C-alpha cells in the first residue's frame, strides 16, 4: 500500500478543479437556450473561460472563512448586548443614525441576495456563476446580521421595528429601493455594473468604511462589527464588479459604448444615493472622524479616478457626471440634513440643530460653503425652535422620476437655485433632479414612467391604510399617511424632548449610580 501523502494542491489548481472542472456544457439543449439572458443587452462574449475570480476562492474555503467571520461577529454582538453596550454610545442622538442606517439597508441587502442568486443562474461561465452564488450568500448574511444588530437597540428605542413594512412605502426609503429595483430589472450585465461597480465600489466604500470607523469611535461595537464584517465580503464583491467590467471590455470592442453608458448612469445613481450617507457622517455621528467631503475625496475621487485611469486602456472615459459630483461634495450632506430637519413629522428618527461647536467643525471642514449657505439656515431654524416655533413642513415632497431623491439639490454652479429638469413622454410631464437623471430617463422612458413614488401616489389615493374608502365624498388623500407607514409616533419630532432622549439619560444614570 502506498502511504505517501499526496502533495497539497496549489491555489490555482484547486480553483480550476473546483470551479470550471465541475461545470459542463449542456447537450440536451444548446447553451444559449439554457442561458438566454446574457445576449439581449447587446454584450458580446466569445470565451466565458476567460473570466476567473482573482481571489481564486473555492466553495470549501468560502464556508470556512465565512463561518469564522460569523463566530467573531456574534461573539462581539453578544458581548456588546450583555454589557449594556447601547448605553456606552457617545450620546442618544447617535441612535438615530442607526435607525436610518439599519432601517434602510437590510431590505437592500435582501434585494442584492435575490439579484445575485439570479446572476448565479444566468451567467454562462462557471467562474462568474460561483462568484455570484457566493455573493448571494454574503448578501443574505448581511441582511441577517444587520437585523440581529438592530434587534438589541429595538428593545430600548423607538421607530426601528417597521423597517420591512416601510421599505416600499416610506418617502425617504424610495431612493434606495429604486436603485435596486432599477438594477434587478435590468439585464445581468447591467446589474453587475450597477451593484458590482457602482454600489460596491462607490457606495459601500463610504458607508462601511469611514462611516463604520466613525460608529466604532462613537462606542457602537455592534454596528462596527456588522459593518466591517460585511465590508470584508465587499472587497470580494468590488473585485467581481471590476472583473466583470474588464471581461466585457476585453471580449469585444463593440461592448465599449454599452459599458460606458452603464458606468455613466450608475456612477450618478450611486452618487445620489450617497447624499444621505453624507449627512449621516457630517450631522448624525456625535463624535466625528472625517467629513463626507474628505471621505468622498479618498474613496471616490482618488479611488474611482484610479479605476477610470486604469480602464482608459480599453477606451473608457471618466463618467460625464464626475465634475458635478466633485462640485456637489461640498453641498449634499447639508442639503440632505436640512431636508430631513424640515420634516419632523414624517420620519421614524429624530433630527436636531448641531451644537455651536459642531457648527464650527462644519465651518472648518467646509470652508467654501458652510458659513456662506448653510449655517444661516440652521441658525434661523434654531432661533425659531427656541421661540417655540420648530419648523415643520407638512407638505409631501416632490421626487425625481429616476433616482427618487426628494428635489433638493442645487443648479450646477448656483447653490441658491434649486435644480429641476423635465421631459415630456407620451404627452405626460416627468420631473428629474438633474441633467444626469434626465438623460437616464430620456434613454429608457418606458422603464422610468413606472417608478412608484409614494409621495406622488399618495395624492392619487394609493397610499392609504386598509379600510379607507378613497371614493368617499370627504376623503382627504394622505390624512392617514402615518398609519399607512405604520410610523411609531414616539419616534417623530425633534430629538429635544423625545422619549429616547429622556430614557437614555435615565438609563445611563442608573448604569453609573446605585
Amino acid at each position, binding site marked *: 500500500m502506498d502511504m505517501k501523502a499526496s502533495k497539497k494542491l*496549489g*491555489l*490555482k489548481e484547486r480553483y480550476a478543479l473546483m470551479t470550471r472542472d465541475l461545470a459542463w456544457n449542456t447537450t440536451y439543449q444548446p447553451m444559449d437556450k439554457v442561458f438566454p439572458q446574457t445576449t439581449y443587452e447587446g454584450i458580446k462574449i466569445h470565451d466565458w473561460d476567460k473570466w476567473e475570480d*482573482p*481571489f*481564486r*476562492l473555492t466553495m470549501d*474555503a468560502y464556508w470556512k*472563512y465565512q463561518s*469564522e*467571520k460569523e463566530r*467573531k461577529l456574534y461573539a462581539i454582538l453578544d458581548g456588546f448586548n450583555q454589557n449594556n453596550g447601547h448605553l456606552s454610545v457617545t450620546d442618544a442622538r447617535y441612535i438615530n443614525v442607526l435607525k436610518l442606517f439599519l432601517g434602510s439597508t437590510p431590505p437592500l441587502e435582501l434585494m442584492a441576495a435575490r439579484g445575485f442568486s439570479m446572476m448565479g443562474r444566468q451567467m454562462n461561465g462557471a467562474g462568474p456563476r460561483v462568484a455570484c452564488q457566493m455573493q448571494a450568500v454574503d448578501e443574505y448574511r448581511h441582511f441577517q446580521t444587520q437585523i440581529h444588530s438592530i434587534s438589541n437597540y429595538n428593545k430600548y428605542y423607538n421607530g426601528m421595528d417597521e423597517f420591512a413594512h416601510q421599505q416600499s412605502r416610506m418617502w425617504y426609503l424610495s431612493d434606495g429601493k429604486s436603485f435596486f429595483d432599477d438594477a434587478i430589472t435590468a439585464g445581468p450585465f447591467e446589474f453587475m455594473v450597477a451593484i458590482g461597480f457602482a454600489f460596491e465600489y462607490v457606495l459601500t*466604500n463610504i458607508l*462601511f*468604511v*469611514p462611516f463604520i*470607523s*466613525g460608529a*466604532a*469611535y462613537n462606542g457602537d461595537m455592534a454596528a*462596527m462589527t456588522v459593518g*466591517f464584517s460585511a*465590508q*470584508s465580503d*465587499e*472587497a*470580494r464583491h*468590488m*473585485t467581481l464588479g*471590476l472583473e466583470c467590467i*474588464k471581461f466585457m471590455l476585453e471580449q469585444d470592442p463593440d461592448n465599449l459604448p454599452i459599458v460606458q453608458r452603464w458606468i455613466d448612469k450608475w456612477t450618478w445613481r450611486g452618487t445620489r444615493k450617497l447624499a444621505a450617507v453624507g449627512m449621516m457622517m457630517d450631522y448624525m455621528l456625535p463624535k466625528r*472622524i*472625517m467629513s463626507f467631503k474628505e471621505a468622498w475625496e479618498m474613496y471616490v475621487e*482618488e*479611488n474611482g*479616478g*484610479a*479605476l477610470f*485611469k*486604469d480602464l*482608459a*486602456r480599453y477606451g473608457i472615459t471618466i463618467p460625464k457626471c464626475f465634475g458635478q459630483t466633485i462640485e456637489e461634495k461640498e453641498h449634499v450632506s447639508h442639503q440632505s440634513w436640512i431636508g430631513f430637519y424640515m420634516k419632523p413629522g414624517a420620519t421614524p428618527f429624530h433630527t436636531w440643530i448641531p451644537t455651536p461647536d459642531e457648527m464650527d467643525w462644519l465651518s472648518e471642514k467646509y470652508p467654501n460653503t458652510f458659513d456662506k449657505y448653510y449655517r444661516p439656515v440652521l441658525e434661523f431654524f434654531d432661533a425659531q425652535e427656541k421661540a417655540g416655533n420648530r419648523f415643520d413642513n407638512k407638505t409631501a415632497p416632490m421626487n425625481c422620476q429616476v433616482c427618487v431623491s426628494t428635489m433638493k439639490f442645487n443648479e450646477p454652479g448656483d447653490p441658491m437655485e434649486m435644480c429641476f429638469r423635465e421631459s415630456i413622454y407620451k404627452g405626460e410631464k416627468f420631473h428629474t433632479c438633474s441633467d444626469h437623471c434626465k438623460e437616464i430617463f430620456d434613454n429608457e422612458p418606458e422603464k422610468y414612467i413606472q417608478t412608484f413614488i409614494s409621495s406622488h401616489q399618495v395624492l392619487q389615493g394609493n397610499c392609504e391604510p386598509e379600510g379607507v374608502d378613497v371614493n368617499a365624498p370627504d376623503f382627504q388623500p394622505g390624512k392617514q399617511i402615518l398609519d399607512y407607514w405604520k410610523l411609531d409616533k414616539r419616534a417623530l419630532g425633534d430629538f429635544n424632548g423625545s422619549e429616547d432622549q429622556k430614557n437614555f439619560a435615565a438609563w445611563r444614570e442608573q448604569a453609573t449610580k446605585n
Partner: protein
Amino acid sequence: MSNAFIAFQKNDDSRCIVEAILEDNPNAMVDDQPSMVKIDVPNRLVIKRETVEEKMGRSFDLQELQLHLITISGNLDETDDEFTLSWNS
C-alpha cells in the same frame, strides 16, 4: 500614478500583516483610523506569505486575509505566495 490600497480591522493578526506590508513595500503609507488601518502604495501593493509568517511566527494562508480585510483598491491577483493589488496606469 494611482495608489493601490488595502484596509484591515485592527487586531493582532492584522498588526503582523501590516508589518509585513511595510517591509515588502518601501513606499507604503499608513493611515491609522479608528478601529481600522489603511495602507496605500503607489501603483502596486504586495503581501508576501513568507514575510507574514515570519512576523506571526506561524504558518499563514493568504486566504486568511479574508477575515481581516475591509476594503481593497486595484486589480487583484492572488496565488499561494503573493497577494497583489496593482493599477495599470
